[in-house]
């Protein structure tokens, strides 16, 4: 076998090979526009990966820009509520119970005379924590189990898919009321755990399907023919090509998980005082909706905006990452 890969006559050989070298700068189009694909769509400039392509799209999408700004703001006040609310969310002044807006207290007071504005700001922490942690947990568990089921198939697949079906079958609210009513902890973790438990099958199914699709690609076969092991095929070839749909579903799920936490808290099964939560405040306020609607409107508005922002972000990410899903 020759020492080097470059036989002398290979360079400057007058055949098509080197001609393509010369022509290489002009990227071309060989795919038929017949497939409904606009011709000439290949970028010519710098290398662009899926992520930079997606980022390029996202930056130009006003829906993304608006929802991202809202979310950044929410995350910041979830971490440092003191930045915009100097009061104490627990300080009660019964004399001012249910009073409307006053200077320094733009949202008014609640039944116990606590400042609604401060409570709305502090409530973001619970919602954001539950949303992000539950999503992270469900996404990790779901993509791990779903991915393994999709990759190995056979018994693994049957077992994990049936397991997912069982969890799918649990009615969310009923399950929440039953499971969480026996929990006494006042932290967010039982709620996060419950949502993860019920949320992973949805993400798992998406991950499974997307791994099965990616697995069939010729480049995975090519890696196998080279002698690549399972780990390399999964991490290097399948995961990067299967992750986009998972991210999309997870982002959209985040919004719904926040809404779910509020619903559970409203029903008394979710977070419990003294945790400050929009759901709990909405629940308390609903009794007094005729006398003091402001107590309900502000936390409910904050919740709606938050859920909407995450769902819109999910939509924008989906459009950017997976044009085929549109």
């Amino acid at each position: 076998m020759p020492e080097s890969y470059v036989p002398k006559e290979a360079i400057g050989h007058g055949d098509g090979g080197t001609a393509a070298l010369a022509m290489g700068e002009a990227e071309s189009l060989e795919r038929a526009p017949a497939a409904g694909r606009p011709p000439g769509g290949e970028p010519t400039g710098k290398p662009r990966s899926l992520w930079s392509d997606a980022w390029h799209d996202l930056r130009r999408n006003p829906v993304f820009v608006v929802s991202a700004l809202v979310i950044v703001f929410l995350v910041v006040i979830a971490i440092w509520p003191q930045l915009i609310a100097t009061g104490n969310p627990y300080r009660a002044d019964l004399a001012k119970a249910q009073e409307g807006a006053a200077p320094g207290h733009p949202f008014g007071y609640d039944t116990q005379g606590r400042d609604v504005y401060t409570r709305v700001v502090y409530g973001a922490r619970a919602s954001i924590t539950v949303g992000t942690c539950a999503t992270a947990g469900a996404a990790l568990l779901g993509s791990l189990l779903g991915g393994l089921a999709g990759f190995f198939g056979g018994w693994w697949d049957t077992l994990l898919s049936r397991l997912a079906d069982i969890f799918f079958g649990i009615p969310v609210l009923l399950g929440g009321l039953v499971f969480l009513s026996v929990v006494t902890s006042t932290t967010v973790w039982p709620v996060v755990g419950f949502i993860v438990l019920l949320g992973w099958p949805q993400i798992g199914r998406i991950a499974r399907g997307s791994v099965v699709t990616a697995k069939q690609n010729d480049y995975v076969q090519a890696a196998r023919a080279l002698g690549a092991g399972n780990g390399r095929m999964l991490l290097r070839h399948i995961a990067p090509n299967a992750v986009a749909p998972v991210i999309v579903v997870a982002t959209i799920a985040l919004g719904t998980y926040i809404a779910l936490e509020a619903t559970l808290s409203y029903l008394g099964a979710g977070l419990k005082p003294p945790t400050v939560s929009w759901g709990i405040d909405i629940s308390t306020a609903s009794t007094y909706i005729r006398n003091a609607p402001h107590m309900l409107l502000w936390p409910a508005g904050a919740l709606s905006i938050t859920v909407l922002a995450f769902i819109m972000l999910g939509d924008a990410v989906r459009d950017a990452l997976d044009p085929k899903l549109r």
Partner: protein
Amino acid sequence: MTNGGVRHGEPLLDVRDLRVEFRTRDGVARAVNGVSYTVAAGQTLAVLGESGSGKSVTAQAVMGILDSPPGFVTGGEILFQGRDLLKLGKEERRKVRGARMAMIFQDALSSLNPVLTVGAQLGEMFEVHEGMSRKKARGRAVELMERVGIPAARERVGDYPHQFSGGMRQRIMIAMALALRPDLIIADEPTTALDVTVQAQVMDLLAELQREFTMGLILITHDLGVVADVADTIAVMYAGRIVETAPVHQLYKAPAHPYTRGLLESIPRLGHKGRELYAIKGLPPNLTAIPPGCAFHPRCPLARDICRTDPPPLYEAGPDRASACHFWRETLDGGKEIFDGAR
């Protein structure tokens, strides 16, 4: 078809200076840049080209099934039986489509509805366009399936598309296209997805039906072999333009455009084991940046200064033939040596 003396009368379809562009994120892709061709009743025009040459886009524009956006017809006329289709309203256009002109696609499986039986899909044509009763339409569907050579048509009329083989599905597509006796059939790579032995059967069927109903046929393909077997006239497309048109025998005997010549030289032949193939150098151009002058000049062994600046018009290169090459005469007579030299 080609028994010499058949004179084709008034053209059935007369495409004049058609222009189509696709507006994409990466710029405007000029997919069709002034294409003109005519098809007469009973004539077969083969449009030959590689992917991206604009051959399918032209056909989609003629059929009125261009995806828009991103595709837009930006100029020209499509005269069909004397009427300019581009000036018709949506509803009138729809009536022409299917009834007067029909299309056959490459991929029969994805062109047929998977959840309806073939009988229902064929019958629907008659129910919708001719107001037949379901029962009567079903009967016509069976007749059609028999006509296109599907064995045991009566038993199979209730089958779904996936229950048929590729060749049979393509026959069903042909049956659907023929159902309303159109005057013009556009077949876009009709046999590309089929095996050779089945390919021959389907092409024969298509040619036979065309003769029987004296239809015009536009055959869009990249396969120089299929073209030689059935076409009367050939239009070769490159980068959205027709670069050469000629009667089939003349084109194969002596091509008048270097691109055509290159294609003919570059295909391996069944009859002998060749040595090195002639290969057209480089790649087809990006349609968002078509080279100035003659679009083929970066790949052409004959290219000179004029080719880089002046786009060649379609020169008349003999009776019934034309070539968009400044040096068509040279290509026609002496090109061979130049191509051998470039090898």
